[in-house]
């Protein structure tokens, strides 16, 4: 049996220091962190974006990623969706007693790789160990600071009638990957999480257009939630076309089987943007050059009609409302 995390690893003792210096810190070391003081001291000026998020995904390892990559991507993406360039991230771990130290090593290795990919530094952190049963293996909180450099005002409240709605790729992959792993669904077409840092994609988009009005990553609640948020916050109507929305066969098949709607399934590496019609073409072609947005597509537009609502033209030529999801998404009986 491999080495396990003990309560003593969180006690501030030599074991704690060993854990930090041997397992946690080496992979993410940088000059700010190396000072090992009580707080990170950062030299910044300009308009800042600041965000925080906690990650409690079960299971912590899932097809296409795990909690470490997710924790970095989530915060990087939240900053990016405000039009900020992510720079610094904090990393706080709440570890359940008994976690395999090898699992922790694997998580940290990917935290490092993802931070390198995104070009962010982890500048402060914390580690707590709790009794067995008081947490579910590993919880992570990350906070992040980014710099708003492009002078654009990007907000869910800024969608304007006439804007085109661009989706960066296929939906539902993260949620379905996690669900299939958690519930032991052996899908014949396996689905892997789309978990990815989107800051470089956003940066390319902002470099070609000053007319991106809203950006959001459709995480929990899926595309349907994000579009409803835009419609309500901006007091506009949104019309989308079912046929335009990319959904891979694995997600489609699993959704058919479970009676779920891909519109409501979580993504961790996709974004939705509202962009003026004039700029939508160049934004789209810039996006398609990024590896995380090859399938980017215009899925609809912002209108003055049916304000506060999202209406979808269905595949068979009719239309229906796409509402916010309600509560936990549960599979049906038959």
């Amino acid at each position, binding site marked *: 049996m491999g080495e396990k995390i003990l309560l003593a690893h969180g006690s501030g003792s030599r074991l704690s220091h060993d854990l930090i210096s041997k397992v946690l810190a080496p992979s993410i070391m940088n000059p700010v962190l190396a000072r090992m003081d009580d707080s990170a001291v950062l030299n910044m000026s300009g308009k800042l974006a600041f965000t925080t998020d906690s990650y409690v995904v079960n299971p912590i390892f899932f097809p296409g990623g795990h909690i470490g990559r997710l924790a970095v991507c989530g915060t990087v993406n939240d900053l990016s969706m405000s039009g900020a360039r992510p720079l610094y991230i904090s990393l706080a771990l709440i570890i359940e007693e008994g976690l395999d130290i090898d699992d922790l090593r694997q998580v940290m290795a990917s935290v490092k790789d993802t931070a390198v990919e995104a070009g962010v530094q982890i500048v402060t952190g914390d580690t707590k160990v709790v009794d067995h049963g008081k947490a579910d293996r590993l919880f992570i909180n990350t906070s992040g600071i980014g710099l708003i450099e492009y002078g654009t005002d990007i907000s869910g409240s800024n969608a304007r009638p006439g804007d085109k709605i661009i989706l960066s790729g296929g939906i539902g992959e993260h949620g379905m990957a996690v669900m299939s792993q958690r519930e032991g669904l052996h899908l014949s077409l396996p689905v892997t999480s789309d978990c990815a840092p989107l800051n470089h994609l956003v940066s390319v988009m902002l470099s070609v257009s000053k007319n991106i009005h809203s950006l959001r990553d459709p995480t929990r609640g899926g595309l349907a939630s994000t579009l409803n948020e835009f419609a309500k916050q901006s007091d506009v109507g949104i019309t989308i076309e079912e046929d335009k929305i990319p959904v891979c066969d694995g997600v489609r098949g699993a959704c*058919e089987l479970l009676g779920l709607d891909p519109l409501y399934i979580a993504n961790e590496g996709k974004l939705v943007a509202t962009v003026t019609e004039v700029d939508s073409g160049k934004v789209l072609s810039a996006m398609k050059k990024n590896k995380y947005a090859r399938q980017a597509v215009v899925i609809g537009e912002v209108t003055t009609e049916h304000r506060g609502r999202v209406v979808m033209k269905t595949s*068979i030529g009719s239309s229906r409302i796409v509402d916010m999801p*309600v509560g936990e998404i*549960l599979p*049906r009986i038959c």
Partner: protein
Amino acid sequence: MKFIDEFRDPGLSRRLADKIAQISTRPARLMEFCGGHTVAIMRNGIRQLLPPHIEMLSGPGCPVCVTANRDIDRAIALSQVPGLIITTFGDMLKVPGSYSSLQQARAAGGDIRIVYSTQDALQAARVNPDRLVVFLGVGFETTAPTVASAVLQAEREKIDNFYILCHLKMTPPAMRALLELGETHLNGIICPGHVSTIIGTKPYQAYARDYGVACVVAGFEPVDILQAVEMLVQQIEDGIARVDIAYTRGVRPEGNIRAQDLMNDVFDTTDACWRGIGDISKSGLSLKNKYNRYDAARRFEVELPPVREHAGCRCGEILRGVIRPVDCGLFGKACTPENPVGPCMVSSEGSCAAYYQYGAHDG
């Protein structure tokens, strides 16, 4: 995706809708029995493609919705028995019983786990030999054979900590009860697709014969449903009533004999209480005497609170097709998916939830 895309073909859907408009000369009142059909109709916007004089009513074909309060109360009470693991399909979690729901019971400490099949429930019993595992057997003829098979498997493997709380129901008696009530004056019924895969079409013959109602078994894709509507309208226009199948890739007239044998081996028919309709003779399934030892209701005695119905909730009339969800005073106001009063607003296949989710609350 094969077997899906061709049944969502926009051109074919349009041609079917045009054909319906062309042949339909008189008002027709059709009921889709099955909740899966209700969802497909709302989700694809099929009603908007039909002439206004064709009325589509939703029937009682959502197993969650027709589960009586008392039966939900019993499941909730069982979940509070120390040491018991309750396994259930996800839909059941949020359904309000008289005072609470399984979701609330779980928050109160009940070990309630969502499963995707009866096999998962059986597996929970295998891997927890020191715990007692109860599966909430809620569903129609589609679910019943899987429950039967799990019972037989438990017996074969001598798994002695596995129990079924059996509230399985059968659709033909409910359909007959609705026709017998005569409240809705139906001209045609879209018969359930998956249920018919198991039971075949024979049980419907009597409805066509005795009540003059056109019957067509339909699949769940837009083209399936439009084709079924077209076949129903054709029968109505021709003044005939018979049972047709518009879902030949899934349904044979004789049904699935093996599944029927399984059910006959494990279950007896029994009277069952349907929410909104009441007691229907021989409409439920109970474990045969020889499988008594798997019956959770016999094994665990629990005290049940007095049954309480929710004031103002018209789920009953909605389940009988007497009113549409939008006709209920609570719909979209006091009763929403966030704060459901009745089960039809909870279940993903409930007609109120389908109407709400897909936009009928805008009129």
